[in-house]
């Protein structure tokens, strides 16, 4: 890939250069268990006790987390306490990650741990929800209301 193409380069741009590189078999689910390279990749997992495989795949980046008001929160490690404190109203895993400056993968693991400890609700949903005409129409209605 060199500089930007001009009009007269259009012919040479017809064939997508990546077509040969991404056969469907190469599009595999991302696994957090993949090889970690370098200290920047390793360091966040100190907070999770070194675990990299504990994230529940059903906990997505958009998954909503809400508090369990029926539980008294015990003393927790700083990051987990911060997550519980953020969940005063429904909040996504991605927002928790961004607001606390936590790696997304680490956030998913910690949120799963808090659910296992009975301290938060994690509202996982079926991946097929996005294929439902009713829910698509609902999103369209909401967007049309934006001016």
């Amino acid at each position: 890939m060199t500089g930007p193409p001009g009009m007269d380069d259009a012919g040479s741009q017809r064939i997508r250069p990546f077509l040969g590189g991404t056969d469907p078999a190469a599009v595999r689910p991302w696994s957090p268990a993949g090889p970690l390279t370098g200290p920047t990749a390793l360091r966040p997992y100190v907070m999770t006790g070194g675990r990299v495989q504990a994230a529940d795949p059903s906990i997505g980046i958009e998954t909503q987390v809400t508090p369990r008001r029926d539980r008294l929160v015990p003393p927790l490690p700083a990051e987990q306490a911060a997550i519980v404190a953020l969940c005063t109203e429904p909040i996504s895993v991605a927002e928790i990650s961004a607001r606390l400056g936590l790696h997304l993968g680490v956030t998913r693991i910690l949120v799963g741990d808090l659910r296992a400890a009975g301290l938060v609700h994690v509202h996982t949903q079926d991946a097929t929800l996005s294929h439902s005409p009713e829910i698509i129409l609902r999103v369209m209605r909401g967007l049309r209301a934006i001016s």
Partner: protein
Amino acid sequence: MDYERSADHRAPKALKIIIGGGFGVGKTTAVGAISEISPLTTEAEMTALSIGVDDAGFEPGKVTTTVAMDFGRVTIDEGLKLYLFGTPGQHRFGFMWSDLTLGALGAVVVVDSRRLEDSHAAVDYFEHAGLPLVVAVNAFDGRLAHDLSEIRWALAVADDVPVVAFDARVRGSVRDTLLTLLDRALLVAYRAAS
């Protein structure tokens, strides 16, 4: 735990749309134009395939890398939020985005008409992932370097994939682009159901 699943009508639901495209084409601008919060950034670990032109014909090299992802939020109604995730646009890497695309309504690939080649990887990925797709050409200063039919031809997108012009800075324009994507998603959903 069953009652936490979407079967419970009281459970808060969330859906997402992926905003893809090359570096600097206006993904974060588009997210910011429609988001009710200032775009936030999260860091995610991804497996990247180095699939640059130089490597054509060779087994692609795989590396795990940390990438920054900008995202925004739109509240649809009391029980449903829509998230817009801008996927990273590194030039020479094809990310394996399955973790992000699972459960997504679809993807908008933002294209700078002066740098069409930067968007090849994203168009290719989302087509292979089978996500409803719209190609949105960001009309910087209201101008396109090529007309839409030329862009469709150059990007070699399927005939049923909408190619539209939009202005990433304008909320109404971003909203209409998302609605075009949802029209497409609805068609796919009805087809799958019949």
